[in-house]
């Protein structure tokens, strides 16, 4: 009996192939997305652990960096420091390594068809046999070997393609006033240079506009003339991985590294060395990438949940419809004496089979999705993700959750249908529904045809709500990222593009700005001195010291770099108080208000500042000062010079030689845009998945609506309603659903953007969310177009309706 019943059910379900396929498709997509994001998130963890590893395969990232950019310690000083440190070491974890390293800013000179190009660069002098912060050369993803001779260099893999460099090529590089030719013997990676941006900026210039190379200590001696062993950076490697404070968390995790730091500070004092001490959380290039990785991982959770929610809603709606359409057959079988239990068995098995097929497809495709996402992230970061695997738990979790949704959404309506009085179903009484007087009043002013459209649309309010919810979540996927990108681009790019008019920012050592100013005046350029130092700190509400950049400007509105004042006033010079501007991200994190006077630490000294205004457009936390005020605090006149060049004047070799780095505005803009584009690329897959879902959800609802309205459409057709008239009715209905769905979509997208921005934002990065009109309209019209595009399906169905058959149905 059961076998026959099940066979009947399978045949009956097979008659609704389109609906059946829609359910299988949504199950597959849900499982696919779950495995893709689960696998992606799991494998991202492997990415840096492999690279940072203290083993033969890893580059052994240091735990602490002690550096001073303006002096070079002798090898004896470094040895003495390390020796004293070892003597004073009283921690349970051993100090594995204490190594000196010379890292210098410089330039690479490349000949092109149009002449010589000076590329901003950074050179490491890494002794053969170094143990900490070595060059990472993973098998199959790097080339050649490490530099050992004085004329050899390893070039960072991030730039070789853009600069067309390969093993055996000779390159001319410089540092300060000296230059030398080196042969490329290797192409590899370095844990400090995953973010290929000069220190002080988060924005990597375009590929090839910033070069990092790894010489041997002999090579560094040849380039700079400094003797082997001279160092401006000392790296410490402590046994295990001492915990350090993660700046993006509320808690303070830095107790272990603080104990190391305390010993280091004592030794620095004893050795009479002046240096900056940074752990991994304070080393921007490392921290930025950690946060980027965490952000990438973090987003997988809401995205997976959103996709799961959409898939679940669609599965529930479709399966319910599928099973409800069986109500008549169930009633007939019940009338014939088939027990509820026998009937339900089939309806319990059917969702399991449908879900099983969908899960199988999703599981087969999931690994491809995960690898594709990992490839995308790998391309963005430029570092290979070598170890890849998807744990069995990911499969089992995703499949069991999906199957639970499928099972309950299939079994519940069957249970409901089996409980209906067969007579009620067979007489059609279960479908008699009294219209709503409220809706009647609201729509009574409309022509009856349009009024019918509205009333038919809201006939199933739960389904309509679920559809709007699914559309909203789909657009949350699609629109929130667009909104963040647009808001980000709107504030950040426009602040550089529209509010600033410098051509090049020339970095100088303290006191060396005169030569750059002379160069500028000699070339009839306008110039402006700027102080920019990440030496401000403030305690947040949890008592954690947060670092911010102090920026000193001579003029806030009329010079080359102006600020985007969001509210308040520009600072004025006053003998009584130090007036400053603070960026909106910092103000939000700290909960500060305009007009408040706050205690901050500036260059090591506590000082009270009065907040007079809030600025927008800074990715990192920034406090703006009048430059003269900041000079008094720091003793530094300028850290860089902005130059505006007349036509015909360009950055040249001589400017490169007198500076410690040059950033051109065009390059910076291209870098920012390229970064946004790359980040958007990663999410584009998700965005389009959202769009696909929106289409699928709308299509599903429209088909269900039209299918359910066969009764009324057939009646109207029999009574003489033309296809055009009925088409207009369906179009009106689509437009209505499209507009409401679009508005809900915009709202969801905005809320999603706010949520994502809050999840991405940390002290280091602040993402403003703006409701950009163009994005909002794009979303609204997108949904509208999708909804309207579904109308032809309804019309096609109308045209192909067999009225004789329908009349038979209407008469039965």
């Amino acid at each position: 009996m059961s076998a026959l019943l099940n066979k009947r059910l399978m045949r009956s379900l097979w008659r609704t192939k389109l609906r059946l396929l829609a359910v299988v498709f949504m199950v597959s997509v849900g499982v696919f997305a779950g495995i893709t994001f689960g696998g992606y998130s799991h494998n991202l963890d492997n990415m840096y652990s492999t690279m940072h590893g203290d083993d033969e395969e890893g580059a052994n990232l240091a735990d602490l960096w002690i550096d001073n950019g303006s002096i070079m310690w002798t090898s004896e000083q470094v040895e003495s420091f390390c020796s004293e440190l070892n003597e004073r070491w009283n921690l349970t974890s051993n100090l594995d390594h204490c190594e000196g390293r010379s890292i210098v800013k410089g330039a690479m000179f490349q000949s092109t068809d149009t002449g010589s190009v000076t590329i901003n660069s950074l050179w490491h002098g890494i002794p053969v046999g170094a143990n900490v912060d070595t060059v990472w050369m993973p098998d199959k993803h790097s080339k050649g070997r490490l530099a050992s001779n004085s004329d050899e260099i390893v070039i960072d893999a991030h730039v070789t393609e853009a600069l067309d460099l390969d093993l055996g090529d000779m390159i001319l590089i410089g540092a300060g006033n000296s230059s030398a030719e080196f042969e490329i013997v290797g192409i590899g990676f370095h844990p400090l240079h995953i973010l290929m941006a000069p220190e002080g900026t988060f924005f990597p210039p375009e590929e090839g506009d910033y070069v990092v190379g790894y010489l041997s200590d002999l090579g560094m001696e040849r380039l700079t003339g400094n003797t082997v062993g001279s160092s401006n950076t000392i790296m410490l490697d402590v046994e295990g991985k001492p915990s350090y404070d993660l700046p993006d968390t509320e808690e303070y995790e830095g107790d272990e590294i603080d104990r190391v730091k305390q010993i280091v500070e004592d030794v620095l004092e004893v050795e009479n060395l002046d240096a900056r001490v940074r752990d991994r959380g304070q080393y921007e290039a490392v921290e930025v990438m950690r946060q980027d990785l965490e952000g990438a991982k973090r987003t997988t959770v809401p995205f997976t949940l959103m996709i799961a929610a959409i898939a679940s809603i669609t599965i529930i709606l479709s399966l319910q419809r599928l099973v409800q359409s069986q109500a008549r057959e169930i009633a007939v079988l019940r009338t014939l004496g088939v027990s509820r239990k026998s009937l339900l068995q089939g309806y319990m098995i059917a969702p399991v089979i449908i879900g099983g097929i969908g899960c199988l497809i999703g599981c087969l495709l999931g690994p491809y999705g995960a690898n594709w996402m990992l490839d995308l992230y790998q391309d963005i970061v430029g570092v290979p993700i070598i170890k890849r695997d998807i744990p069995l738990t990911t499969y089992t979790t995703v499949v069991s959750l999906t199957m639970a949704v499928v099972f309950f959404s299939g079994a519940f309506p069957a249970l409901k249908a089996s409980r209906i009085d067969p007579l009620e179903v067979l007489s059609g009484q279960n479908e008699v529904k009294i219209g709503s007087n409220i809706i009647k009043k609201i729509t009574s002013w409309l022509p009856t045809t349009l009024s019918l459209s509205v009333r038919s649309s809201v006939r199933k309010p739960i389904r309509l709500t679920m559809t709007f919810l699914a559309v909203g979540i789909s657009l949350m996927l699609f629109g929130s990222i667009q909104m963040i990108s647009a808001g980000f681009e709107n504030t950040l790019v426009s602040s550089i593009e529209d509010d600033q008019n410098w051509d090049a920012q020339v970095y100088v050592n303290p006191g060396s700005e005169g030569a750059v100013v002379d160069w500028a005046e000699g070339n009839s350029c306008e110039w402006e001195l700027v102080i920019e130092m990440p030496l401000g700190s403030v305690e947040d509400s949890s008592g954690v010291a947060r670092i911010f950049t102090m920026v000193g400007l001579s003029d806030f509105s009329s010079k080359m770099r102006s600020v985007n004042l969001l509210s308040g006033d520009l600072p004025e010079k006053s003998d009584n108080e130090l007036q400053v501007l603070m960026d909106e991200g910092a103000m939000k994190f700290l909960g500060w208000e305009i007009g408040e006077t706050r205690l901050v630490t500036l260059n090591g000294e506590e000082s009270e500042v009065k907040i007079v205004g809030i600025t927008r457009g800074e990715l990192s936390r920034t406090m703006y000062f009048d430059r003269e005020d900041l000079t008094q605090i720091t003793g530094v006149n300028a850290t860089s010079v902005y130059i505006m060049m007349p036509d015909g004047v360009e950055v040249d070799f001589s400017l490169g030689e007198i500076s410690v780095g040059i950033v051109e505005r065009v390059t910076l803009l291209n870098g920012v845009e390229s970064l946004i584009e790359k980040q958007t690329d990663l999410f584009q897959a998700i965005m389009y998945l959202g769009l696909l879902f929106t289409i699928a959800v709308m299509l599903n609802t429209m088909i269900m609506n039209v299918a359910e309205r066969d009764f009324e459409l057939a009646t109207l057709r029999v009574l003489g309603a033309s296809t055009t008239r009925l088409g207009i009715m369906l179009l009106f209905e689509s437009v209505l659903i499209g507009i409401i769905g679009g508005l809900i979509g915009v709202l969801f997208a905005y809320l999603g953007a706010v949520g994502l921005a809050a999840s991405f934002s940390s002290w280091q990065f602040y993402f403003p969310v703006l409701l950009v009109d163009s994005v909002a309209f794009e979303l609204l019209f997108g949904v509208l177009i999708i909804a309207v595009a579904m109308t032809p399906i309804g019309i096609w169905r109308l045209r192909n309706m067999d009225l004789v058959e329908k009349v038979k149905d209407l008469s039965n």
Partner: protein
Amino acid sequence: MPMIEMEDIKRHYEMASGVVKALDGVDISIEKGERVLLLGPSGSGKTTLLNCLSGLDSPTSGQYTFNGIEVPRNHSERMTSFRRENIGYVFQFFNLLQDLTVLENILLIQELSGKKDEQRARDLLDLVGLSNEVDRFPGEISGGQQQRVAIARSIAKKPNLLLGDELTGNLDTLTSTKVMEALVKACEKEKITSVFVTHDESLVKYSTRVIRVDSGKIISDTVVENPE
């Protein structure tokens, strides 16, 4: 000239088991103002004949003219236009739109045929005895009342021909009487020709002519003396 002229109408269906001759050479001529009852057992072909008359179905062969003009066939839109301009239809299960009120159900049909006239709609509801139910939804009134609304709806656009398929098949005797009386009253007032399919012999008294169908052929065609 007769309003309806059918000559040697055949409607054959190709089935797996062979050709089914639902209509096999039917000749009918119906004058304006007649109330024709098509009687016959199940499977006799009376519904197929009604479908052909209404332009829902296309005969396989034969001539069918309506007011002297050939009725379109095998063309969905032209057949729909024919129905819109000439035919009113009453279903067995009323088929009122549940989301519209009684009055709106009538207005909708007027609107679709481009002849919206609310006063006429109200008058028709008065004619079928439902002037107090205009603002109710179909689900709020009885089956007999719903069928009377369906009758008012079918004549709202002033059709030339009113068709009905077992229109009292779902009603009890008393309600059937009320419905048929309303129908006769409406047809007479509106001067509408009508053709109804039924197997209920008791309805003969409401017609002016009875055509009996069996095996796809007309087996008798009689005029009713003193119809009600």
